[in-house]
């Protein structure tokens, strides 16, 4: 799946719907056209953050004449189902997406409503968000998305207890990491939990190594259609380092049978069977949800280790810049939709997101950081994002959808030895670009 599967399993789409229906009992009908149920449907990715969205919609429905309904699509199927319904009668009014490449095809098909009119009426819809984030949902000069949820940089998570028992510290450099891997392996612990069955967790290792070794320029060039970008020395060095890591036994041997989406790899980390996991910041919420005690006491985290002599700035990040709400042109309640979107920068929303470990990118976020579920984690992330010279959008989201399957196969096969460096480079060169 091209899209990040954050923490499925925990989602309860049906329950959410039922709850919404019971909450939106009063209020009376609105003058809606026939064929639609007089409500605005908000479609989001189903996971643990849904509780914030439920709360938000409940608040919205208290004052609004047009009621909102939350629909969720769990985990990995989100993009496929979205694309199937978006041009049909079942299409939602507002939907969750990843900005940029993920909505480009919809914009080109003329399905989305440019939000410039909303912004003209309420400049807050633009001004209240960090510009770098807001701009990633601008297509052809028009705004198509309002940031929701939070920014999700990929971080190196760890089990502090396992590290302590093995006498290992959270690694700061690549050499530290390799040394830690050797030591942990000797202790009989899987050094790094990897949900290789999902494939996108594997991608994160490629993204960071390429960025650290060759800088963000390589990928940008490749995405612009310069196939030679993949053959450079930086590309080979990054691949060689990754090969070293695999050969050192960092991921164990059965990572291809492990998944993040069925709680496999996070459980390995929480149980102390593995010491590290490279994962988006949603790992925090996942652990908080399924292993609250571990999340509170022993969940360690840091930025990806630095690579000596690499071209990329050690402060660079990769991951999801943010999630966005986009609006369909065919919505019958644009005023209500605009009102709903305004909630995305409200103090209440920011606090609720911080409460579940997400980091919104509104301008008022900073003053609430201390109210976050884990203030230290919130401050840490916010500083990282604020200081990062480059924030690379995940490759599978940057590339067009049809490239994803082949990309995933190449990643998996390189890691398990089915492809060598040349084979991997060839596979990446063969990917279609926009």
């Amino acid at each position, binding site marked *: 799946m091209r899209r990040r599967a954050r923490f499925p399993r925990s989602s309860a789409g049906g329950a959410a719907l039922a709850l919404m229906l019971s909450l939106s009992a009063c209020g009376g009908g609105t003058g809606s056209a026939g064929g639609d149920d007089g409500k605005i449907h908000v479609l989001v990715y189903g996971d643990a953050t849904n509780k914030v969205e439920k709360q938000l919609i409940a608040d919205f429905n208290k004052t609004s004449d047009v009621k909102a309904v939350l629909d969720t699509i769990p985990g990995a199927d989100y993009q*496929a189902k979205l*694309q199937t319904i978006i041009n049909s009668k079942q299409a939602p009014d507002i939907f969750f997406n990843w900005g940029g490449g993920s909505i480009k095809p919809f914009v*080109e098909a003329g399905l989305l409503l440019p939000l410039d009119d909303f912004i003209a009426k309420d400049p807050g819809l633009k001004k209240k968000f960090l510009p770098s984030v807001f701009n990633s949902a601008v297509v052809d000069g028009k705004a198509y998305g309002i940031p929701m949820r939070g920014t999700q940089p990929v971080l190196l998570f760890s089990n502090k207890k396992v590290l302590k028992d093995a006498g290992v510290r959270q690694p700061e450099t690549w050499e530290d990491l390799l040394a830690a891997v050797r030591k942990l392996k000797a202790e009989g612990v899987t050094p790094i939990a990897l949900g290789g*069955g999902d*494939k996108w967790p594997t991608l994160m290792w490629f993204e960071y190594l390429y960025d650290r070794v060759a800088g963000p320029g390589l990928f940008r060039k490749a995405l612009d259609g310069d196939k030679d970008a993949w053959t450079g020395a930086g590309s080979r060095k990054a691949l060689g380092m990754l090969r070293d890591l695999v050969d050192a036994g960092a991921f164990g041997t*059965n990572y291809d*049978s492990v998944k993040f989406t*069925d709680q496999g790899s996070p459980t390995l980390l929480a149980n102390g069977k593995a010491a590290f996991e490279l994962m988006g910041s949603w790992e925090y919420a996942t652990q908080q949800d399924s292993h609250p005690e571990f999340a509170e006491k022993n969940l360690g985290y840091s930025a990806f280790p630095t690579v000596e002599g690499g071209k990329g700035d050690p402060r660079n990040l990769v991951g999801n810049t943010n999630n966005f709400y986009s609006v369909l042109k065919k919505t019958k309640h644009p005023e209500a939709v605009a009102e709903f979107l305004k909630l995305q920068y409200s103090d209440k929303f920011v606090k609720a997101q911080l409460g579940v470990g997400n980091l919104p990118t509104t301008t008022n976020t900073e003053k609430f950081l201390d109210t976050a579920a884990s203030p230290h984690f919130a401050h840490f992330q916010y500083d990282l994002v604020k200081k990062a010279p480059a924030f690379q959008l995940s490759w599978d989201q940057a590339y067009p959808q049809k490239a994803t399957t082949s990309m995933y196969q190449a990643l998996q*096969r390189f890691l398990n030895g089915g492809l060598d460096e040349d084979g991997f480079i060839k596979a990446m060169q063969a990917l279609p670009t926009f």
Partner: protein
Amino acid sequence: MTTTSLTPPATQRRQAASGGRPPGRSGTGTGASRPGSAWAAPAAVFFALFALVPLVLVAALSLSSWDGLSEPEFVGLDNWKKLLDDPVMLKSLWLSVLLTVLGVAIQTPLSILLGVWAAGHQRNRAVLSAIYFVPLLLSATAVSVLWRAVLDPNFGVPAQAAWLFGDGNLFGVQSSAIGVLVFVSAWQFTPLHTLIYQGAARAVPQVLYQAARIDGAGTVRQFFHITLPQLRNSIITSMILMVVGGLTTFETVLILTQGGPGTDTTISAFYMYQQAFKSFDYGTASAIGVLLVLVATFISLIMVRLSGYGKMRSTMEGL
């Protein structure tokens, strides 16, 4: 072949069959008392609506480029040319056939033995048969999710049985991934075929066994010389069901392996899904669909030819 209510009187049948065919064996005569074609209308309408029309639409779509958002665009044979050069396509056909063959090879002996056993009158037979039947009542999706969890390398059976599973990397190696797929399908579908064989074994006339016993044949000889030959038509029926099921396998692959590692378990039906709902290339996906129909038709024609299914001679001749 005909049911009693549809069987014309013997005299008419002989007349109808007088077109040079041996009398008595033809149920295909056009006797006056055969039901009119109007009776076939409801089935024909449904078949046309839900099988033929979609098939034609898919064939048309296979000549177009469509992402599900904009209008389909006619591209001629581009999708087909691309497919013929696509190593994954060829591999997926080969994998589909391999999975089907393995499925038949494993399920057939198992279900014959179970079915013949279940046809007997042993103690506890009914209870055990009912238990064997349970997997068939579960959806393929539920079964796959269940086995995915049972076979989890860290929290499932492989973690406790390292002597058998090694590091438990069942889904990361082609041979074991295929093994899991075959096993899970067999686990789920053997009961169905057991049921077929149980019914068929019950229908074997007891006189044959009585005669064999008088001649001194033991249980094993009776099985190979009476039961198996008597089950011939059921074996063909069951095999055709297995082949059809094997070629249309999808959920187990989707949930258990997602076509991985790499493309090592990407069977044609899953490849079609990938092209349509992961890559949003409905044109190519339709071409794969049409190709799958052609291959399946070809295979079933061969099977009908080789097995004599078209004639379906009675096993009761001479009794």
